[in-house]
Structures are given as C-alpha cells and as structure tokens.
C-alpha cells in the first residue's frame, strides 16, 4: 500500500494543472472525462472561476464511447464548439479512463487541427500525476508554439514562470511580485500562469531573465534557455534578505553570458548543517525560498520536504523528496523539528511536540483555507514565526 494516503489528501492532479496554466490565455481546454461536470478542475481547483471567463469543457465520455473507442465524438463536438467560440488554440487532455483505453491525444489533436485550422495540442494528462506535471507540459506547449525571437527589453526584462493560483495566491501575491520587480528596477514582461494574455506571452523572448516561481515553470524556463539563451533564476521574493539576494541574482543572470540557472542553493544557503530546527513541507521553489528567508531573516535552518516533482537544482542535500504519507510521517518523527511550516491538513501527520505554522496551499487543500493563503511577498518573517 505504498503511496496510499490514509490521512492527508493528495495534491491537485495534472488535469487541474493544465486547466490552471491555460485559464487566461483564450484557448479552449477540453478534458476527456466522464460526467460532463467540470467542477473538479474549474471550481474546486480554480479560484478565478467566478471572476474570469474561461473556455474549459469536459467531453462527457460515456461507457460505450470508451469501450468502442469512439474518438469521433470528442473530435466532432470539439470542432463544433470551436466553430462557435473561435478560441486562440485548443488543448486536449486526458483523465484516468482515456488513460486506461489508451486514447492517442496527439492523433486526435491532429485531426481536430486539420478540420478547424486552429492550433490544437494533445496534452498527456491522466489524472494520476500532480498538477505540477500538467501545468509544466501546458506551459511548455504554449512557449514552443507562441514564443519567438524578438528584440530585447532596454532594461532587465523579466518573465514570471509557473505562477498558477494552485501555488501562488491569486489577487495578492502576483501584484506583490510585480511590485517587487518594479522596486528592484526590473521590467515586467509576461507571466506564465496568471494575469498575462497570449499576446503578452508572445513577447516573452524579449526578456533577459526568467524568474521561475514554481516548479511548474521549470520546463518552459529550460526550453527558453536553450532556444533563446534566456537565463533563469528560481525563487519567490520572500523576506528581506532572500528577496535582496534574489534581486541580485536576477541582475547577475541578466549580465551573464551563458549563465543558466541560479537556485537557492546557488545563493549560498546550506541547509544541511545538522542544526535543522524547522521543516517546510510543500512545493519546492516556494519552500526553498521560505527556507532562505528563515535563514537570512531569523537565523533558522530549515529542511524542505517536497512531496511534488522537483530536482537537485532546487533541493539541497538535506532536503527530502518524499511522496508517501508514511515516509513523510517517518521523516518528521525522526527529525523531531521544533517547527513545521505546512498546509493545515498536514496537522495530522506532524509530531505532537512540533509546533505548526499553517501555510495553506491551494493545490493541497483547495478552497478550504484559500482565503488564509498569505501573500508571501509581504510577510515579515519574524511576525510570521510568532
């Protein structure tokens, strides 16, 4: 029963990641799934649903369509809907049932594109992977299709990559990141995730640096590094010291030729000092940024437990990529941290003797604590720790 969670919930699935990543881009997202109800993807996992229109549809896959391999229904329904809606693009993605029957989304996308003349992507979600993987694939598809070489910004132009509301609180933190960029003297170019149109994203290659604020933006950052030579920096501007270093690194990345990536580890933090008193559980880049802020603003060493896709560029030696509830629980019992910073729903696997600071994460607890998600760009670390 490895990987079965008996207490904590699982993170939002890859399908939600696709819907979230493409939400504001004027495309039509079609989830090939049963029932006709799209609330899982678009309301439970989507805080923008009641405020911003988006073309997210479910194919209403039936048992007989699945058994008979009736791809024609999703193809003709999508073609008919696209004729009415005139989307900028069409994205098709899957759920567990099409995964089981082996639906070929690339081939279906090609057929829809031939019939509509509208660019159509097949995205390979199956509802069993995390939102990070879905959003990552969707961002990469958008960047590959729409971002082309263009003249560079005069100043240090910056794209924000991976800022979906599943990780970054909507309506608060985005404004905070943009303000911080402006205060540092950087020029905001576009954002993959929210508050950016497709037209804005088409100019993304004019930026000199990509700021990756969630691991969902990493694949797009790596592509833009290879394709356009845009260096990237990972991190969220959290706390005074870390934000200052993040800004310096953006400046350094903009000036450097063939720079690549700067992560929290490259910023001089060593979380493996053995004096760990805090553990942060969550998405890798946000958690590492917070760990950096704890170190620089409060002198606290924190390890990160990351239950989501990440890599060694982001995580340091002392950090742990743990996916199973039992592994997370065992690690916490072994470390016995004084403090655990995690979503409120982790409370039940945290040792009783550890203090918890609740840090709601939309991709984990959805709307339950959505209104309590703090704008990390504005928090005072010492106040946060009280």
């Amino acid at each position, binding site marked *: 029963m*490895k*990987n079965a969670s008996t207490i904590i919930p699982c993170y939002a699935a890859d399908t939600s990641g696709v819907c979230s990543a493409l939400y504001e881009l004027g495309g039509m997202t079609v989830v090939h799934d049963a029932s006709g109800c799209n609330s899982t993807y678009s309301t439970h996992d989507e805080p923008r649903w009641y405020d911003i229109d988006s073309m997210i549809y479910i194919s209403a896959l039936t048992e007989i369509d699945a058994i008979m*391999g009736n791809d024609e229904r999703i193809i003709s329904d999508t073609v008919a809907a696209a004729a009415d809606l005139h989307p900028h693009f069409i994205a098709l993605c899957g759920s567990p049932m099409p*995964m*089981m*029957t*082996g*639906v*070929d989304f*690339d*081939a279906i996308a*090609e*057929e829809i594109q*031939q019939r509509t003349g509208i660019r159509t992507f097949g995205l390979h979600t199956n509802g069993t992977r995390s939102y990070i993987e879905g959003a990552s694939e969707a961002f990469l598809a958008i960047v590959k299709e729409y971002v082309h070489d263009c003249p560079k910004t005069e100043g240090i132009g910056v794209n924000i990559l991976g800022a979906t509301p599943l990780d970054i609180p909507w309506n608060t933190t985005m404004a905070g990141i943009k303000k911080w960029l402006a205060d540092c003297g950087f020029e905001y170019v576009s954002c993959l995730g929210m508050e950016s149109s497709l037209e804005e994203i088409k100019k993304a290659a004019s930026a000199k640096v990509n700021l990756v604020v969630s691991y969902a933006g990493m694949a797009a950052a790596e592509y833009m590094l290879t394709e356009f030579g845009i260096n990237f920096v990972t991190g969220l501007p959290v706390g005074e010291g870390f934000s200052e270093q993040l800004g310096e690194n953006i400046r350094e990345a903009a000036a450097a030729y063939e720079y690549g990536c700067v992560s929290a580890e490259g910023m001089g933090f060593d979380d493996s000092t053995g004096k760990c008193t805090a553990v942060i559980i969550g998405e890798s880049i946000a958690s590492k940024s917070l760990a950096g802020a704890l170190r620089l603003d409060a002198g606290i060493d924190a390890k990160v437990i990351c239950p989501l896709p990440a890599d060694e560029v982001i995580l340091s030696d002392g950090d742990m990529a743990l996916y199973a509830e039992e592994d997370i629980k065992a690690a916490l019992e072994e470390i016995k941290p004084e403090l655990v910073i995690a979503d409120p729903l982790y409370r039940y696997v945290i040792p009783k003797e550890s203090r918890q600071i609740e840090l709601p994460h939309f991709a984990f607890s959805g709307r339950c604590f959505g209104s309590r998600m703090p704008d990390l760009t504005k928090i005072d670390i010492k106040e946060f720790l009280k």
Partner: protein
Amino acid sequence: MIKLALYGKGGIGKSTCTANLSAALASLGKRVIQIGCDPKADSTINLLGGQPLQPVMDYLREHDDEPDHIEQISKIGYGGILCIETGGPTPGLGCAGRGIITTFSLLEELELFKSFKPDAVLYDVLGDVVCGGFAAPIREGYAHDVLIVTSGEKMALYAANNINKAVKNFEDRSYAKVKGIIMNRRSVENEEEKVRAFADGAGLEIAADIPRSADIIKYEDMGKTVIEGDPGCETAKRFFALAQRLIDEDETNE
C-alpha cells in the same frame, strides 16, 4: 531507422518470424531492439538461449517504484539484441492493452532509443489489433511499417484482413502503414495461391516466403533461432534476404 511491427493471428508464428528477423538484422551488423507485446512474454525467448525474460509488467507488479535503468527490464540476447517483454496482467484480470501502453511510456521515460541508439526496432504484437493498447506499436514515433504474418489457412487470412483494415482506419493519423505480408507456410493446399489472392485483393506484396521447415522447431527446442542454429539453411536465407531488403530500403530512405 528500421521500425517494424509484426501482427498476425495467434499461433501463426509472429514471434518466430520476429526473432529470426531480429537475429538476421543483428548478424548483418545492426543494433537491434525486439519488444514483445504479448502477455505470454515469450517473443524473445529464442534470442536468449531459451531463458525467459522478466516482463516489464512483472517488474512493476513486484516493485513499488518504476525502474531507473533499462537493464532492470531488459536482457541482451543473440547478436547483442536488446530484448524487452511487456508481459501482461494475471490471465483473466486487468487490461493487457494498457500494459503495452504503460511499457511504452516507461521506455520513453528511460529514453531507450536515445541511449541504445538502435538501427532497428521490432515490435512483436499479440494476435490482432483488438483495442487501443494493441495499436500502440503503430502510433507515431514507434513502428513505421507493419508486416502481417499469415499462412494460407482461412482463419489466418481472415485475421490478416482484419489487421489490414484496422491499420487503414488510421490513415488520417500519422500511424504506421502495412508494408506487406510474411507468408509463413503451413503446408496448406494451394497455400501460395490463397495468400497471393488475399495480397492482391488488399494491394499488398508478399515481402517474404518462409517455408515450412523442421529446422525452426529443432532450433527452438534448443532455445535458438535458425539464424543462430544454422545460418546456411534455406529458412535462414529467407530471413536474411528480408533483413537485407529492409536495410537497403532504410538506407535509401535516409
């Protein structure tokens, strides 16, 4: 790169033909991968000295995590051929077609083609194109051509016709196309005429004519292909001829 899928009625000799063709390509100096797409998982057994290979599905059943290296789910057989078996669920349970798709996704994640750099990949596919999973080997990026194995037996030709029609259904997609027929003789009366009539009707050519031969059974009992056992015999020569033709066509296309 030669990317070929062999389809045909159950028991018609697909695995025998695939293994011999792989062995012939390897003997001609090519780096070959053979992927058995059948729950029975016996496609590559005669490339491995009669030793069975742990199928990918069995590996996934026994381990919590997916394999990190291709070596964990493959073996090197005759002529350096990399052998993989998808395997399948417990008979009567689960979904064998899904097993093929899962295996292919895993091979992609392990970047098999990038790391092994094959000259030829051969897919030996169970019986018929019965569902989406069994069409996976002909999807874009996998097989480029299909060879249908048939004898002159009525049910074998019936299955061959179904397979040809199934592949044609995907003409609008960038799937593999049927390249031709391997006539695997079963000593049926007027066998050549019957197979030729089907081939002409379907607009297909007979790419190879494999005689009924005791050599095949003799060497299979020893865990070998005829290419390994007796490369000079008539059956081996037919496989060598087909292999050489595939190599020549591939070089021309490139």
